[in-house]
Every structure is written in structure tokens, then in C-alpha cells.
């Protein structure tokens, strides 16, 4: 898949919970607007400078819009990989093969949790910049990342999906 070229991204500060924007349903965007292309570029730039970050959604930089980026290249749990890309107005069309897995979030820096996600998804979205409609079929860790980011765009955190009372953990600090 070819992703359109975006402007140069700027690194933005990341918002952490509790913050209203993280729990607010994001608005749909016009993917062809220059502001949205810039936002997508900024999200990618911020993700790229953040160690271990495999995805970032607009609410995490304080913007209540349905835009996010992912990049699971070289991740040991990834199978299908589409590279580094940003999507707007994404929706999950199909989800299957549900599996539990532990995930964290830059906006909840001190905790991780076990969350059941589909290991195979079909996502429909539009690309920032071109506005081209795309359908992405993926699996494994890229599928998990997409579901986590789409959740952000609808005001949900992984904390809203953890499996049970013993499924949240203090994040280990690796030095």
C-alpha cells in the first residue's frame, strides 16, 4: 500500500490520563485538509521519538479528532505489517480470533493491562493528505495496535477493556 507524502512533522507533548480529551469521542475529519495532514505528520513524528511507541492517536496530543498513526515494524509480535502510516475516520469492519494480550499506553504511563483484542481485523479508513479510501486487512500485533488507536479515537482507554480485577499491573521500569 502506498501512503501519501505528508508535511514535516513536529514532536508534540503527550497528554496523560486523567484528561477529558482522552475520554471524549473524537470528531470525524476532512482528510484532505492541510491541518489534518499536518496533525498526522505530527503524530508520526511524536511516535517516532517515543521509545517503544507503536501507535499514537490525536486525543493523546490533546486533539479530539479521529486521526492516528501506527508502526509495528520489527515488533516481535507482529506478523502482517503495513509500515508507518496514519489513518482518519477509521472503523473496524470485521474482527475475529479474539486473544488476550498485555498492552500499555503512553497516556497511562504507569500501568499495563490484559486486554482481549481481535487477532484479525478489517479496517476501513481514509488517508490523510489524499483522502483516498482504504481497506486494511491485518492480524496479530498490527491488529491490536489498530484497535487500541481506534479506541482512543472513540474516547476509550485500555483500562475500559481490561479482563478483570487482576488484569492491571504496575508497569515495570527498565533502566
Amino acid at each position: 500500500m502506498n501512503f501519501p507524502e505528508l508535511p514535516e512533522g513536529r514532536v508534540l507533548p503527550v497528554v496523560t490520563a486523567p484528561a477529558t480529551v482522552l475520554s471524549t469521542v473524537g470528531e470525524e475529519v476532512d482528510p484532505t485538509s492541510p491541518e489534518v495532514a499536518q496533525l498526522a505528520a505530527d503524530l508520526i513524528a511524536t511516535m517516532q521519538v517515543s521509545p517503544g511507541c507503536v501507535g499514537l492517536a490525536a486525543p493523546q496530543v490533546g486533539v479530539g479528532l479521529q486521526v492516528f498513526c501506527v508502526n509495528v515494524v520489527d515488533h516481535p509480535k507482529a506478523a502482517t505489517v503495513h509500515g508507518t502510516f496514519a489513518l482518519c475516520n477509521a472503523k473496524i469492519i470485521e474482527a475475529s480470533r479474539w486473544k488476550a494480550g498485555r498492552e500499555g499506553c503512553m497516556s497511562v504511563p504507569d500501568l499495563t493491562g490484559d486486554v482481549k483484542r481481535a487477532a484479525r481485523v478489517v479496517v476501513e479508513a481514509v488517508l490523510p493528505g489524499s483522502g483516498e479510501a482504504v481497506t486494511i486487512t491485518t492480524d496479530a500485533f498490527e491488529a491490536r495496535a489498530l484497535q487500541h488507536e481506534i479506541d482512543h479515537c472513540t474516547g476509550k482507554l485500555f483500562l475500559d477493556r481490561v479482563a478483570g480485577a487482576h488484569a492491571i499491573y504496575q508497569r515495570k521500569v527498565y533502566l
Partner: protein
Amino acid sequence: MPELAITVIGPDRTGIVADVAEALAEVGANLTDSTMTRLRGHFAMTLICTLAEPSAAEAALKSLTGVTTTVREVSPSSVDESGESWVVSVHGADRLGIVAAVTRVVAASKGNITDLSTRLAGTLYVLIAEVDLPAGAGDELAERLAVAASELGVEVTLRRADSEIL
């Protein structure tokens, strides 16, 4: 055989679980259900064991240094396993009374909390509770929780717990 409810609390250290288990094993106490966790660095263990001579457990645990222990005899009780399993997530800015308000709402819907954990991470307060609810009571509880959550200024989610049997 008498059933004992035991709690052990103290500063966490390597080997503390082994010390507790060993002290109980030496007097013939048979561990049945137990749970152990760390709460802000404190070791906290709660367990049920069976033992012919309950006073022996108390004496055995006295040998552990640096921990507070309680031992009491309890009558065996059966648990009502009927109803539906749900999970409640609450998160938001820390403030007084979140747990009290949320669990009161759950109780008002005849929900029985079977497992609960809360974490304070920075200013973020997180509560996850597993709740047994009477069949069909989920929608009403969800509505009540939404009201309570907006009063508290926190986010709440209620969803069915997974229970696939493989």
C-alpha cells in the same frame, strides 16, 4: 477440620511468601484458597487453611518478624455462584470517595463484588471490579453507574466478563 482465615501484612521482602507457607506447613496447616499481592510496596496475603489445632497456626506465625498477622476461625461457607459475571472499570482524577460511591451503586443493584483492585498512578485513580449480578440487571446498573460517574467526574465502563470454557 476447622477452617482458619489468616492475614499477613508487612513490608515486602524476598522470601516472605515462602516464610509464611513454611510456617504454616510445619504445623500441618493445609492452605486452600489464598491471594497475595503488593500494595504500594506492602506485602499483603489473605488465606484460608484447615488445621486440626487452630492455636498452632497463631504460634507458628508469631515466629515471622516484621509482619502483622491475624488468625481467626471461620465456619465453612458456600458461595452462591448464580447470576452473571460483569466487569466494572472506573478511571479518573483521584478524589475522596470514588470506591465508596461506585461500590454503593453496585450494591444497590444487588451486585456482589467478587474481586476488586484499585491503583493510584500519579493523579490517575483506577478501579476494576468483578461483579456478580442478577440476570438482566446489567442495563440498570450501567445507567446508575453512569450517573454516579458523572457526579464523580470519572469514566466508567460496565461489560460482561468473558467466560469461554475450553
